[in-house]
């Protein structure tokens, strides 16, 4: 196969890579978006679909700012995708609830949110502590065990599969090459370019953006970067479609635009194990029924596990390689929430060969082991 030559290759056709590629469309950049194929772990296809701000940035103020910037830009992204591709990603962003089931849970949560907002340099975002009555006004049908919760008006949800489809369609319709089945096995830095060896031949590029999720851990060192991401397993339970009853998403429970009810939760460090853990599913279902007793007789149709892409400190990484300029790594565990800044800020900057100022707060070298003095 003859080598394909492009200006920019984005490695990873998930939500992160596709959003960045979408941000590069119509800039005159010859672009290839390389997707591994159906064997990939695909967090983009297993995620819960929330646009979620509340709680983000604890321990790193810049992450709170970056996350809320994305949430505020989300309506513009959804409108652009609809205008350019005709695909409605079902954005609903009128607020979201983190429900608490005991007074102690609510106290701990409220105290944590207060400490979050009080961090030095933290750009405040709206977050309210709601008592039971306030929760019940917004979400009628909430169970008697719900004592209150926290609410952010920036929170919401979307249809993440349509989001992925729309980003891919947006890239393809502006002349970007979306290359399926292109697993990158080796990256060879050469003078002023990179040679990507893939399962379907060679792709040469002037710049390369690694957005390969868990595979970034092995790909980044090939260009002198460090992205020690590991899998973090979450699980989703899918219930029958029912008539609309949940006007706002909860952090662990939402109803899609098509009526399906989803329960999503759990964080497990189990390596690349994607099997379901029924004890965890049972606990998730039991809690969902306490939050909404109406769900008691609604049946489960399926469930899945998926792997989050987690960095050692849980925050994203945006970095250019000092050793191989023109090579970038991007990784995060909130590909839906951050899709708007990835598409509207990061993509265009990377097409110019640089990181946007706000993304420089998330360097890769923070994970380097420093020698003792």
């Amino acid at each position, binding site marked *: 196969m003859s080598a394909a030559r492009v200006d920019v290759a984005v490695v990873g056709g998930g939500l992160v890579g596709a959003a960045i590629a979408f941000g590069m469309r119509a800039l005159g950049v010859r672009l290839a978006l390389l997707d591994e194929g159906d064997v990939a772990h695909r967090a983009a296809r297993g995620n819960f679909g929330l646009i979620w701000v509340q709680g983000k940035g604890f321990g790193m103020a810049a992450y709170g700012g970056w996350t809320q910037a994305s949430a505020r830009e989300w309506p513009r992204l959804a409108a652009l995708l609809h205008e350019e591709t005709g695909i409605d990603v079902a954005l609903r962003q*009128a607020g979201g609830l983190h429900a608490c089931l005991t007074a102690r849970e609510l106290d701990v949560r409220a105290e944590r949110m207060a400490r979050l907002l009080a961090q030095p340099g933290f750009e405040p975002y709206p977050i309210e502590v709601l008592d039971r009555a*306030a929760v019940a006004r*917004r979400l009628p049908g909430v169970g008697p065990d719900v004592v209150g919760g926290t609410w952010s008006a920036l929170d919401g949800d979307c249809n993440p599969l349509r989001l992925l489809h729309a980003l891919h369609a947006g890239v393809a319709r502006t002349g970007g090459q979306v290359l399926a089945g292109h697993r990158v096995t080796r990256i060879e830095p050469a003078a002023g370019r990179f040679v990507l060896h893939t399962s379907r031949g060679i792709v040469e590029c002037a710049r390369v953006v690694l957005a390969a999720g868990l595979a970034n851990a092995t790909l980044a060192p090939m260009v002198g970067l460090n992205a020690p991401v590991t899998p973090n397993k979450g699980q989703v339970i899918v219930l029958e*479609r*029912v*008539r609309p009853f949940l006007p706002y998403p909860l952090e662990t429970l939402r109803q899609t635009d098509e*009526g399906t009810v989803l329960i999503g939760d759990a964080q497990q460090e189990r390596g690349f194990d994607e099997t379901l853990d029924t004890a965890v599913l049972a606990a998730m279902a039991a809690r969902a029924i306490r939050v909404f007793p*109406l769900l008691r007789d609604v049946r489960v149709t399926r469930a899945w596990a998926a792997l989050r892409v987690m960095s050692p400190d849980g925050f994203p990484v945006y970095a250019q390689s000092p050793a191989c300029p023109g090579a970038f790594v991007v990784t995060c565990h909130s590909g839906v929430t951050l899709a708007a800044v990835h598409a509207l800020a990061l993509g265009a900057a990377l097409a110019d060969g640089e990181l946007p100022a706000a993304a420089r707060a998330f360097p890769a070298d923070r994970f380097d082991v420093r020698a003792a003095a």
Partner: protein
Amino acid sequence: MFARLPDTTGARIAISIDGETVDARAGDTVAAALFAAGRGACRSTPVTGAPRGPFCMMGVCFDCMVEIDGRPNQQGCATRVAAGMRIVTQRGARAIATPDAESP
């Protein structure tokens, strides 16, 4: 469109479909009884409202879902008729209690 074979032997059983009393035969599945009663479509889809009826007759397509004796989303092809069974065709998604929300 569908007619019973002349050698049908099952005893007659009265069931109701959308409140109308209909004769079924012992051994019929709900889906077969719907066909025998001339009901092609037994539900409309939650997303587009398109009509749907029994298709695979073997439990895999989930197109024959109906409410049976008060329980929604039952597979008609995987349920045998019983005397007095109440079958209700479904329009869109099943209901659960739907209280009115207020804006925050």
